[in-house]
Protein backbone atom coordinates (compact mmCIF):
# COMPACT_ATOMS: atom_id res chain seq x y z
CA UNK A 1 0.00 0.00 0.00
CA UNK A 2 2.70 2.43 1.03
CA UNK A 3 4.79 1.60 -2.01
CA UNK A 4 1.83 2.39 -4.24
CA UNK A 5 1.48 5.81 -2.67
CA UNK A 6 5.19 6.49 -2.98
CA UNK A 7 5.17 5.48 -6.62
CA UNK A 8 2.12 7.65 -7.26
CA UNK A 9 3.82 10.62 -5.63
CA UNK A 10 6.98 10.09 -7.67
CA UNK A 11 4.96 9.87 -10.88
CA UNK A 12 3.09 13.07 -10.06
CA UNK A 13 6.33 14.88 -9.29
CA UNK A 14 7.85 13.64 -12.55
CA UNK A 15 4.84 14.84 -14.49
CA UNK A 16 5.19 18.29 -12.97
CA UNK A 17 8.91 18.40 -13.69
CA UNK A 18 8.41 17.43 -17.32
CA UNK A 19 5.49 19.84 -17.69
CA UNK A 20 7.57 22.62 -16.21
CA UNK A 21 10.51 21.90 -18.48
CA UNK A 22 8.31 21.80 -21.58
CA UNK A 23 6.57 25.06 -20.76
CA UNK A 24 9.86 26.77 -20.04
CA UNK A 25 11.28 25.67 -23.38
CA UNK A 26 8.17 26.86 -25.19
CA UNK A 27 8.35 30.27 -23.53
CA UNK A 28 12.08 30.73 -24.16
CA UNK A 29 11.71 29.56 -27.75
CA UNK A 30 9.04 32.18 -28.35
CA UNK A 31 11.16 34.85 -26.70
CA UNK A 32 14.08 34.05 -28.96
CA UNK A 33 11.89 34.14 -32.06
CA UNK A 34 10.34 37.39 -30.91
CA UNK A 35 13.75 38.98 -30.41
CA UNK A 36 14.69 37.93 -33.93
CA UNK A 37 11.56 39.55 -35.30
CA UNK A 38 12.30 42.69 -33.29
CA UNK A 39 15.52 43.11 -35.25
CA UNK A 40 13.32 43.44 -38.32
CA UNK A 41 11.47 46.28 -36.62
CA UNK A 42 14.69 48.26 -36.43
CA UNK A 43 15.64 47.33 -39.97
CA UNK A 44 12.30 48.59 -41.24
CA UNK A 45 12.70 51.83 -39.32
CA UNK A 46 16.08 52.33 -40.95
CA UNK A 47 14.60 51.53 -44.34
CA UNK A 48 11.91 54.14 -43.90
CA UNK A 49 14.43 56.88 -43.18
CA UNK A 50 16.43 56.29 -46.32
CA UNK A 51 14.23 57.95 -48.98
CA UNK A 52 14.38 61.20 -46.97
CA UNK A 53 18.12 60.91 -46.79
CA UNK A 54 18.48 60.30 -50.51
CA UNK A 55 16.29 63.30 -51.37
CA UNK A 56 18.21 65.59 -49.03
CA UNK A 57 21.54 64.55 -50.48
CA UNK A 58 20.23 64.84 -54.03
CA UNK A 59 19.46 68.48 -53.37
CA UNK A 60 23.15 69.23 -52.83
CA UNK A 61 25.07 66.50 -54.55
CA UNK A 62 23.02 65.67 -57.60
CA UNK A 63 25.97 64.39 -59.60
CA UNK A 64 26.76 61.72 -57.04
CA UNK A 65 24.14 59.72 -58.90
CA UNK A 66 26.09 56.50 -58.69
CA UNK A 67 26.27 56.47 -54.91
CA UNK A 68 22.65 57.55 -54.52
CA UNK A 69 21.48 54.83 -56.86
CA UNK A 70 23.45 52.26 -54.97
CA UNK A 71 21.66 53.25 -51.77
CA UNK A 72 18.22 53.21 -53.35
CA UNK A 73 18.79 49.83 -54.94
CA UNK A 74 20.17 48.35 -51.74
CA UNK A 75 17.15 49.64 -49.88
CA UNK A 76 14.76 48.07 -52.37
CA UNK A 77 16.63 44.78 -52.09
CA UNK A 78 16.41 44.89 -48.30
CA UNK A 79 12.68 45.60 -48.41
CA UNK A 80 12.09 42.74 -50.83
CA UNK A 81 14.22 40.12 -49.07
CA UNK A 82 12.29 37.11 -47.86
CA UNK A 83 14.64 34.43 -46.56
CA UNK A 84 16.98 35.06 -43.68
CA UNK A 85 20.04 34.75 -45.90
CA UNK A 86 18.66 37.28 -48.36
CA UNK A 87 17.88 39.63 -45.50
CA UNK A 88 21.36 39.41 -44.06
CA UNK A 89 22.97 39.94 -47.44
CA UNK A 90 20.70 42.87 -48.31
CA UNK A 91 21.33 44.40 -44.90
CA UNK A 92 25.09 44.18 -45.41
CA UNK A 93 24.85 45.80 -48.82
CA UNK A 94 22.69 48.60 -47.45
CA UNK A 95 25.11 49.28 -44.64
CA UNK A 96 27.94 49.43 -47.15
CA UNK A 97 26.03 51.76 -49.48
CA UNK A 98 25.10 54.09 -46.61
CA UNK A 99 28.70 54.18 -45.50
CA UNK A 100 29.80 55.21 -48.97
CA UNK A 101 27.07 57.86 -49.11
CA UNK A 102 28.23 59.47 -45.88
CA UNK A 103 31.83 59.33 -47.03
CA UNK A 104 30.88 61.10 -50.24
CA UNK A 105 28.88 63.69 -48.34
CA UNK A 106 32.09 64.78 -46.63
CA UNK A 107 33.06 66.58 -49.80
CA UNK A 108 30.00 68.85 -49.77
CA UNK A 109 30.27 71.46 -46.97
CA UNK A 110 26.79 72.89 -47.67
CA UNK A 111 25.28 69.46 -47.32
CA UNK A 112 27.17 68.80 -44.11
CA UNK A 113 25.79 72.00 -42.62
CA UNK A 114 22.22 71.28 -43.65
CA UNK A 115 20.15 70.62 -40.53
CA UNK A 116 17.95 68.06 -42.24
CA UNK A 117 20.97 66.07 -43.23
CA UNK A 118 22.47 66.30 -39.76
CA UNK A 119 19.20 65.21 -38.18
CA UNK A 120 18.89 62.24 -40.54
CA UNK A 121 22.48 61.28 -39.90
CA UNK A 122 21.84 61.40 -36.15
CA UNK A 123 18.69 59.32 -36.46
CA UNK A 124 20.41 56.73 -38.61
CA UNK A 125 23.24 56.52 -36.12
CA UNK A 126 20.66 56.07 -33.35
CA UNK A 127 18.96 53.26 -35.27
CA UNK A 128 22.29 51.55 -35.86
CA UNK A 129 22.79 51.59 -32.10
CA UNK A 130 19.33 50.19 -31.58
CA UNK A 131 20.03 47.51 -34.18
CA UNK A 132 23.15 46.52 -32.31
CA UNK A 133 21.17 46.43 -29.06
CA UNK A 134 18.42 44.33 -30.70
CA UNK A 135 21.00 41.86 -31.98
CA UNK A 136 22.68 41.59 -28.60
CA UNK A 137 19.29 41.03 -26.99
CA UNK A 138 18.61 38.34 -29.58
CA UNK A 139 21.91 36.66 -28.74
CA UNK A 140 20.99 36.81 -25.08
CA UNK A 141 17.63 35.16 -25.71
CA UNK A 142 19.23 32.46 -27.87
CA UNK A 143 21.90 31.77 -25.24
CA UNK A 144 19.22 31.44 -22.59
CA UNK A 145 17.18 29.02 -24.68
CA UNK A 146 20.25 26.94 -25.53
CA UNK A 147 21.40 26.82 -21.94
CA UNK A 148 18.03 25.81 -20.51
CA UNK A 149 17.55 23.25 -23.27
CA UNK A 150 20.91 21.65 -22.60
CA UNK A 151 20.71 21.67 -18.81
CA UNK A 152 19.91 18.61 -16.78
CA UNK A 153 17.23 17.22 -16.51
CA UNK A 154 15.53 19.16 -19.31
CA UNK A 155 18.03 17.83 -21.81
CA UNK A 156 16.64 14.33 -21.30
CA UNK A 157 13.28 15.14 -22.85
CA UNK A 158 14.02 18.21 -24.95
CA UNK A 159 14.36 16.12 -28.08
CA UNK A 160 11.00 14.48 -27.47
CA UNK A 161 9.27 17.84 -27.51
CA UNK A 162 10.80 19.06 -30.71
CA UNK A 163 13.49 21.16 -29.07
CA UNK A 164 16.29 18.88 -30.06
CA UNK A 165 18.55 21.44 -31.68
CA UNK A 166 20.31 24.56 -30.51
CA UNK A 167 19.38 27.88 -32.01
CA UNK A 168 22.09 29.76 -33.90
CA UNK A 169 23.37 33.11 -32.73
CA UNK A 170 23.40 36.24 -34.84
CA UNK A 171 26.58 35.66 -36.68
CA UNK A 172 28.53 37.58 -39.21
CA UNK A 173 29.21 35.68 -42.43
CA UNK A 174 32.70 34.12 -42.52
CA UNK A 175 34.02 36.25 -45.38
CA UNK A 176 32.70 39.41 -43.76
CA UNK A 177 34.33 38.55 -40.48
CA UNK A 178 37.64 37.94 -42.22
CA UNK A 179 37.33 41.28 -43.99
CA UNK A 180 36.41 43.10 -40.78
CA UNK A 181 39.21 41.67 -38.68
CA UNK A 182 41.78 42.06 -41.43
CA UNK A 183 42.15 45.81 -41.59
CA UNK A 184 40.30 48.78 -40.08
CA UNK A 185 38.29 50.77 -42.65
CA UNK A 186 40.26 53.75 -43.87
CA UNK A 187 38.91 57.22 -43.28
CA UNK A 188 40.26 59.73 -45.75
CA UNK A 189 39.83 63.45 -45.35
Amino acid at each position, binding site marked *: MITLIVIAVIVVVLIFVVMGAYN*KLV*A*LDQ*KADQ*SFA*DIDVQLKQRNDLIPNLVETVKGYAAHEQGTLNAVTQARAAAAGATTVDQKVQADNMLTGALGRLFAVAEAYPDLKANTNFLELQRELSDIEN*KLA*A*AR*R*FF*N*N*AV*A*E*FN*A*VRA*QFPTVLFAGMFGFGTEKPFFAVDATDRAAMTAAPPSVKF
Partner: protein
Amino acid sequence: MAAVGLQTHIWANNTRSILLLAGFPVMLVGVIFGIQLILMGFGFLPSSGGTLEQDIAYAGTMLAGTIPLAVVVALIWFAIAWFGNQAIMDGLTGARKVARKDSPELYNLLENLAISRGLKTPTLRIIDSDSLNAFASGLREGQYSVTVTRGLMDALDRDEMEAVLAHELTHVINKDVRTMVIASIFAGIISVIAQLVVRGMFYVRPGGRNKNAGPLILIGFAVAAVGYALAIVIRLMLSRTREFVADAGSVELTRNPDAMISALRKVSGRSKLEAPDDVQGMFLDNERMGFTDALFATHPPIEKRIAALIRFAGGRDPGPWEGETLGGPGTSVPVSG
Protein backbone atom coordinates in the same frame (compact mmCIF):
# COMPACT_ATOMS: atom_id res chain seq x y z
CA MET B 1 17.16 25.96 -11.10
CA ALA B 2 19.69 28.77 -11.40
CA ALA B 3 18.93 31.63 -13.73
CA VAL B 4 20.89 31.73 -16.96
CA GLY B 5 19.35 34.66 -18.77
CA LEU B 6 16.79 37.42 -18.55
CA GLN B 7 13.63 35.29 -18.57
CA THR B 8 14.89 32.74 -16.07
CA HIS B 9 16.09 35.59 -13.83
CA ILE B 10 12.59 37.10 -13.92
CA TRP B 11 10.95 33.72 -13.25
CA ALA B 12 13.29 33.01 -10.34
CA ASN B 13 12.51 36.34 -8.73
CA ASN B 14 8.78 35.99 -9.29
CA THR B 15 8.87 32.58 -7.64
CA ARG B 16 10.76 34.09 -4.73
CA SER B 17 8.15 36.84 -4.48
CA ILE B 18 5.28 34.35 -4.33
CA LEU B 19 7.01 32.29 -1.67
CA LEU B 20 7.72 35.41 0.36
CA LEU B 21 4.15 36.63 0.08
CA ALA B 22 2.96 33.20 1.17
CA GLY B 23 5.16 33.61 4.22
CA PHE B 24 2.95 36.36 5.59
CA PRO B 25 -0.05 34.23 6.52
CA VAL B 26 2.40 31.75 8.05
CA MET B 27 3.92 34.52 10.17
CA LEU B 28 0.46 35.65 11.17
CA VAL B 29 -0.44 32.15 12.33
CA GLY B 30 2.87 31.95 14.16
CA VAL B 31 2.26 35.20 16.00
CA ILE B 32 -1.25 34.16 16.94
CA PHE B 33 0.07 30.88 18.22
CA GLY B 34 2.69 32.65 20.28
CA ILE B 35 0.03 34.94 21.74
CA GLN B 36 -2.13 31.99 22.64
CA LEU B 37 0.79 30.49 24.54
CA ILE B 38 1.33 33.72 26.40
CA LEU B 39 -2.35 34.07 27.26
CA MET B 40 -2.40 30.49 28.37
CA GLY B 41 0.60 31.12 30.56
CA PHE B 42 -1.10 34.06 32.16
CA GLY B 43 -4.19 32.03 32.75
CA PHE B 44 -6.48 33.96 30.43
CA LEU B 45 -6.91 30.93 28.26
CA PRO B 46 -7.77 27.50 29.57
CA SER B 47 -4.89 25.08 29.60
CA SER B 48 -4.72 21.34 29.22
CA GLY B 49 -3.79 20.95 32.86
CA GLY B 50 -0.88 18.71 31.97
CA THR B 51 2.74 19.05 30.95
CA LEU B 52 4.31 21.82 28.86
CA GLU B 53 4.10 19.71 25.72
CA GLN B 54 0.43 19.06 26.33
CA ASP B 55 -0.23 22.75 26.81
CA ILE B 56 1.51 23.59 23.57
CA ALA B 57 -0.41 20.91 21.72
CA TYR B 58 -3.62 22.24 23.25
CA ALA B 59 -2.77 25.71 22.03
CA GLY B 60 -2.29 24.18 18.60
CA THR B 61 -5.80 22.79 18.57
CA MET B 62 -7.15 26.14 19.72
CA LEU B 63 -5.85 27.58 16.48
CA ALA B 64 -8.77 25.93 14.74
CA GLY B 65 -10.97 28.42 16.50
CA THR B 66 -8.76 31.50 16.48
CA ILE B 67 -7.64 31.33 12.84
CA PRO B 68 -11.11 31.96 11.36
CA LEU B 69 -11.54 34.87 13.75
CA ALA B 70 -8.13 36.20 12.75
CA VAL B 71 -9.02 35.88 9.07
CA VAL B 72 -12.17 37.93 9.54
CA VAL B 73 -10.34 40.60 11.53
CA ALA B 74 -7.54 40.68 8.96
CA LEU B 75 -10.00 41.11 6.08
CA ILE B 76 -11.72 44.02 7.77
CA TRP B 77 -8.34 45.54 8.59
CA PHE B 78 -7.28 45.07 4.99
CA ALA B 79 -10.35 46.80 3.67
CA ILE B 80 -9.88 49.80 5.93
CA ALA B 81 -6.13 50.06 5.34
CA TRP B 82 -6.55 49.62 1.58
CA PHE B 83 -8.89 52.54 1.19
CA GLY B 84 -6.80 54.55 3.61
CA ASN B 85 -3.79 53.88 1.43
CA GLN B 86 -5.68 55.01 -1.64
CA ALA B 87 -6.40 58.32 0.04
CA ILE B 88 -2.76 58.78 1.01
CA MET B 89 -1.57 57.92 -2.47
CA ASP B 90 -4.04 60.37 -3.96
CA GLY B 91 -2.85 63.07 -1.61
CA LEU B 92 0.71 62.37 -2.62
CA THR B 93 0.05 62.88 -6.25
CA GLY B 94 0.58 66.56 -5.78
CA ALA B 95 3.60 66.35 -7.99
CA ARG B 96 2.97 68.32 -11.16
CA LYS B 97 1.16 66.48 -13.89
CA VAL B 98 2.93 66.70 -17.22
CA ALA B 99 0.94 66.93 -20.43
CA ARG B 100 2.37 66.02 -23.82
CA LYS B 101 2.98 69.62 -24.78
CA ASP B 102 4.94 70.43 -21.59
CA SER B 103 7.61 67.79 -22.09
CA PRO B 104 6.96 66.17 -25.45
CA GLU B 105 10.15 64.12 -25.54
CA LEU B 106 9.64 62.66 -22.10
CA TYR B 107 5.96 62.05 -22.67
CA ASN B 108 6.66 60.36 -26.00
CA LEU B 109 9.24 58.08 -24.40
CA LEU B 110 6.70 56.91 -21.86
CA GLU B 111 3.92 56.64 -24.40
CA ASN B 112 6.01 54.59 -26.83
CA LEU B 113 6.90 52.15 -24.09
CA ALA B 114 3.28 51.85 -23.03
CA ILE B 115 2.13 51.33 -26.60
CA SER B 116 4.70 48.61 -27.16
CA ARG B 117 3.03 46.72 -24.32
CA GLY B 118 -0.54 47.54 -25.21
CA LEU B 119 -1.11 49.65 -22.08
CA LYS B 120 -2.86 52.90 -21.48
CA THR B 121 -0.11 55.47 -20.88
CA PRO B 122 0.24 56.18 -17.14
CA THR B 123 0.09 59.79 -16.01
CA LEU B 124 3.48 61.45 -16.10
CA ARG B 125 4.47 63.67 -13.19
CA ILE B 126 7.50 65.75 -12.29
CA ILE B 127 8.85 66.71 -8.89
CA ASP B 128 11.00 69.81 -8.65
CA SER B 129 13.92 68.21 -6.87
CA ASP B 130 17.61 68.09 -7.63
CA SER B 131 17.86 64.49 -6.52
CA LEU B 132 17.92 61.85 -9.19
CA ASN B 133 14.97 59.56 -8.59
CA ALA B 134 11.70 58.28 -9.96
CA PHE B 135 8.80 56.21 -8.75
CA ALA B 136 5.65 54.48 -9.88
CA SER B 137 2.38 54.81 -8.01
CA GLY B 138 -1.26 53.90 -8.32
CA LEU B 139 -3.24 50.93 -7.11
CA ARG B 140 -5.85 50.67 -9.81
CA GLU B 141 -6.34 50.96 -13.52
CA GLY B 142 -6.75 54.64 -14.28
CA GLN B 143 -4.65 55.73 -11.32
CA TYR B 144 -1.27 54.55 -12.52
CA SER B 145 1.36 57.18 -12.57
CA VAL B 146 5.09 57.54 -13.14
CA THR B 147 6.90 60.39 -11.42
CA VAL B 148 10.41 61.65 -12.14
CA THR B 149 12.48 64.38 -10.55
CA ARG B 150 13.76 67.44 -12.35
CA GLY B 151 17.29 66.39 -11.39
CA LEU B 152 16.81 63.10 -13.18
CA MET B 153 15.59 64.78 -16.33
CA ASP B 154 18.62 67.06 -16.37
CA ALA B 155 21.23 64.41 -15.69
CA LEU B 156 20.13 61.49 -17.85
CA ASP B 157 20.37 61.23 -21.61
CA ARG B 158 17.53 59.93 -23.75
CA ASP B 159 18.38 56.23 -23.63
CA GLU B 160 18.97 56.27 -19.88
CA MET B 161 15.69 58.10 -19.27
CA GLU B 162 13.94 55.52 -21.43
CA ALA B 163 15.48 52.76 -19.30
CA VAL B 164 14.28 54.43 -16.09
CA LEU B 165 10.77 54.94 -17.47
CA ALA B 166 10.75 51.31 -18.59
CA HIS B 167 11.78 50.25 -15.06
CA GLU B 168 8.90 52.19 -13.52
CA LEU B 169 6.49 50.97 -16.20
CA THR B 170 7.47 47.39 -15.33
CA HIS B 171 6.47 48.12 -11.73
CA VAL B 172 3.09 49.27 -13.07
CA ILE B 173 2.70 46.22 -15.32
CA ASN B 174 3.55 43.82 -12.51
CA LYS B 175 1.26 45.67 -10.09
CA ASP B 176 4.16 45.91 -7.67
CA VAL B 177 2.71 48.90 -5.87
CA ARG B 178 -0.33 46.82 -5.00
CA THR B 179 1.82 43.87 -3.91
CA MET B 180 3.92 46.05 -1.63
CA VAL B 181 0.84 47.69 -0.11
CA ILE B 182 -0.57 44.23 0.63
CA ALA B 183 2.74 43.20 2.18
CA SER B 184 2.90 46.35 4.20
CA ILE B 185 -0.66 45.92 5.50
CA PHE B 186 0.15 42.36 6.53
CA ALA B 187 3.31 43.50 8.23
CA GLY B 188 1.27 46.20 9.94
CA ILE B 189 -1.28 43.73 11.26
CA ILE B 190 1.40 41.41 12.59
CA SER B 191 3.36 44.27 14.08
CA VAL B 192 0.39 45.81 15.88
CA ILE B 193 -0.77 42.51 17.32
CA ALA B 194 2.71 41.60 18.49
CA GLN B 195 3.30 45.00 20.05
CA LEU B 196 -0.08 45.12 21.77
CA VAL B 197 0.54 41.79 23.41
CA VAL B 198 4.07 42.61 24.50
CA ARG B 199 2.95 45.89 26.04
CA GLY B 200 -0.09 44.25 27.51
CA MET B 201 2.16 41.75 29.22
CA PHE B 202 3.58 44.42 31.47
CA TYR B 203 0.28 45.77 32.66
CA VAL B 204 -1.76 42.70 33.13
CA ARG B 205 -2.44 40.88 36.35
CA PRO B 206 -2.53 37.19 35.73
CA GLY B 207 -5.69 35.40 36.70
CA GLY B 208 -5.26 31.84 37.85
CA ARG B 209 -1.66 31.01 37.06
CA ASN B 210 -0.98 28.07 34.91
CA LYS B 211 1.69 25.77 36.29
CA ASN B 212 3.65 25.93 33.04
CA ALA B 213 3.39 29.70 33.03
CA GLY B 214 7.08 30.53 32.82
CA PRO B 215 8.11 28.45 29.84
CA LEU B 216 4.80 29.04 28.09
CA ILE B 217 5.19 32.79 28.28
CA LEU B 218 8.80 32.64 27.21
CA ILE B 219 8.12 30.40 24.24
CA GLY B 220 5.09 32.41 23.27
CA PHE B 221 7.10 35.60 23.48
CA ALA B 222 9.89 34.12 21.38
CA VAL B 223 7.51 32.89 18.70
CA ALA B 224 5.72 36.23 18.54
CA ALA B 225 8.99 38.14 18.42
CA VAL B 226 10.37 35.97 15.63
CA GLY B 227 7.12 36.32 13.70
CA TYR B 228 7.27 40.08 14.06
CA ALA B 229 10.91 40.34 12.99
CA LEU B 230 10.44 37.96 10.08
CA ALA B 231 7.42 39.89 8.84
CA ILE B 232 9.58 42.98 8.47
CA VAL B 233 12.40 41.05 6.83
CA ILE B 234 10.03 39.27 4.43
CA ARG B 235 8.52 42.55 3.36
CA LEU B 236 11.95 43.96 2.54
CA MET B 237 13.13 40.83 0.76
CA LEU B 238 9.96 40.98 -1.31
CA SER B 239 10.66 44.58 -2.20
CA ARG B 240 14.16 43.65 -3.34
CA THR B 241 13.01 40.85 -5.62
CA ARG B 242 10.53 43.23 -7.24
CA GLU B 243 13.38 45.64 -7.93
CA PHE B 244 15.39 42.94 -9.70
CA VAL B 245 12.38 42.07 -11.80
CA ALA B 246 11.83 45.74 -12.65
CA ASP B 247 15.43 46.13 -13.78
CA ALA B 248 15.08 43.05 -15.96
CA GLY B 249 11.73 44.28 -17.27
CA SER B 250 13.36 47.54 -18.26
CA VAL B 251 15.82 45.63 -20.43
CA GLU B 252 12.97 43.61 -21.92
CA LEU B 253 11.18 46.78 -22.94
CA THR B 254 14.15 48.77 -24.21
CA ARG B 255 16.51 45.94 -25.31
CA ASN B 256 19.24 48.11 -23.84
CA PRO B 257 20.91 46.91 -20.61
CA ASP B 258 23.76 49.40 -20.95
CA ALA B 259 21.36 52.34 -20.60
CA MET B 260 19.85 50.90 -17.40
CA ILE B 261 23.30 50.31 -15.95
CA SER B 262 24.54 53.77 -16.76
CA ALA B 263 21.33 55.29 -15.37
CA LEU B 264 21.88 53.36 -12.13
CA ARG B 265 25.47 54.62 -12.03
CA LYS B 266 24.29 58.19 -12.32
CA VAL B 267 21.55 57.80 -9.73
CA SER B 268 23.76 56.06 -7.19
CA GLY B 269 24.32 58.24 -4.14
CA ARG B 270 22.27 61.09 -5.57
CA SER B 271 18.81 59.73 -4.99
CA LYS B 272 17.83 61.03 -1.55
CA LEU B 273 14.17 62.00 -1.54
CA GLU B 274 11.76 62.47 1.33
CA ALA B 275 8.53 60.50 1.16
CA PRO B 276 6.36 58.14 3.19
CA ASP B 277 7.71 54.62 3.58
CA ASP B 278 5.41 52.95 1.08
CA VAL B 279 6.36 55.34 -1.68
CA GLN B 280 10.05 55.04 -0.85
CA GLY B 281 9.78 51.36 -1.61
CA MET B 282 8.80 52.27 -5.14
CA PHE B 283 11.73 54.65 -5.81
CA LEU B 284 14.19 53.87 -8.54
CA ASP B 285 16.77 53.67 -5.82
CA ASN B 286 16.50 54.01 -2.07
CA GLU B 287 19.88 53.97 -0.47
CA ARG B 288 20.07 53.56 3.24
CA MET B 289 23.26 54.71 4.80
CA GLY B 290 24.59 52.93 7.80
CA PHE B 291 24.79 49.60 9.48
CA THR B 292 21.33 48.24 8.94
CA ASP B 293 21.68 48.19 5.15
CA ALA B 294 21.79 44.58 4.11
CA LEU B 295 18.72 43.30 5.89
CA PHE B 296 16.61 46.43 6.09
CA ALA B 297 17.09 47.89 2.63
CA THR B 298 14.10 48.12 0.32
CA HIS B 299 16.38 47.99 -2.70
CA PRO B 300 19.29 45.76 -3.55
CA PRO B 301 22.62 47.63 -3.54
CA ILE B 302 23.44 49.28 -6.86
CA GLU B 303 26.45 47.01 -7.34
CA LYS B 304 24.26 43.93 -7.08
CA ARG B 305 21.70 45.33 -9.48
CA ILE B 306 24.40 46.15 -12.01
CA ALA B 307 25.99 42.72 -11.55
CA ALA B 308 22.61 41.07 -12.23
CA LEU B 309 22.16 43.16 -15.36
CA ILE B 310 25.63 42.23 -16.59
CA ARG B 311 25.15 38.57 -15.81
CA PHE B 312 21.63 38.01 -17.08
CA ALA B 313 21.06 40.77 -19.58
CA GLY B 314 24.46 41.08 -21.22
CA GLY B 315 25.06 44.63 -20.07
CA ARG B 316 28.35 46.49 -19.76
CA ASP B 317 29.36 48.68 -16.83
CA PRO B 318 30.86 52.10 -17.58
CA GLY B 319 31.99 52.54 -13.97
CA PRO B 320 30.98 55.19 -11.40
CA TRP B 321 29.77 58.49 -12.77
CA GLU B 322 31.87 61.52 -11.94
CA GLY B 323 29.32 64.09 -13.02
CA GLU B 324 27.99 66.93 -10.93
CA THR B 325 24.42 67.62 -10.00
CA LEU B 326 23.04 70.83 -8.51
CA GLY B 327 22.10 71.12 -4.88
CA GLY B 328 21.92 68.65 -2.03
CA PRO B 329 19.30 66.24 -0.70
CA GLY B 330 15.89 66.44 -2.24
CA THR B 331 12.90 68.37 -1.01
CA SER B 332 9.81 66.65 0.30
CA VAL B 333 7.09 65.36 -1.90
CA PRO B 334 4.61 68.22 -2.02
CA VAL B 335 1.16 67.46 -0.71
CA SER B 336 -0.79 69.82 -2.92
CA GLY B 337 -0.31 72.20 -5.78
